[in-house]
């Protein structure tokens, strides 16, 4: 799965995107976040305030309990501040 980061999440993780092979046990966005936090200290720091982070699957907003299903791209970012 392709993982993308934006704004301060991107800065904390230190990369813009990465590709991960997900184990079958990772079924929801929350499972994916738990996995990402184990990658290294930077990932762990980026997701420290987990509930503050917004998620999109295949470029659609979803909640943390959403099932990943057939999505090929997940994106993590702070609350939006455009406009």
């Amino acid at each position, binding site marked *: 799965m392709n993982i993308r980061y*934006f*704004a301060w999440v991107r800065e904390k993780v230190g990369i813009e995107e990465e590709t991960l092979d997900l184990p079958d046990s990772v079924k929801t966005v929350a499972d994916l976040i738990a996995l990402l936090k184990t990658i290294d200290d930077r990932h762990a720091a980026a997701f420290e305030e987990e509930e503050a982070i917004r998620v999109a699957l295949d470029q659609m*907003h979803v909640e943390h309990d959403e099932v990943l299903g057939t999505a090929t791209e997940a*994106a993590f*970012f*702070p609350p*939006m*501040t*455009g*406009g």
Partner: protein
Amino acid sequence: MSTKSPISPTVRVQSEDFDPGLEGQRLTAGRKDVGALVSFTGLCRDESGRLSALELEHYPGMAEAELTRIAEEACRRWPLTGLTVIHRFGKITPGNNIVLVIAASSHRRASFEAADFLMDYLKTRAPFWKKEHLASGQDDGWVKAKNADDEAMKRWT
């Protein structure tokens, strides 16, 4: 957000500036059924000299997709004759344009409400993030999302 949008809104995500007057003309040219055009332009302020610029990061692809979803929802809610949404990204200095929403309709109320709705939804759902460049040269920081924006969006549900 399932039924088909009655008209096709124009949605653009770009680094270049836009011309609000020209975009308005495009929604009225050659037509005799447009009675009301409401245009919102959002600009970069310097906040009394505190800021030297804003840097707008966006999620390419999703930015266009989400703005289109919001715009099509507005077209379903109000009887619009035209709708244009343009959002810039990249570094924008004070006095320059950031975002444009123009809603055209036969009637005034629909144009006002659609433009207002678009801005409320866009602020909380379109994947853009502002970073401040400070005039003092001190550390830059990300703009924090406002609770007031979330509250404003709830007016429409």
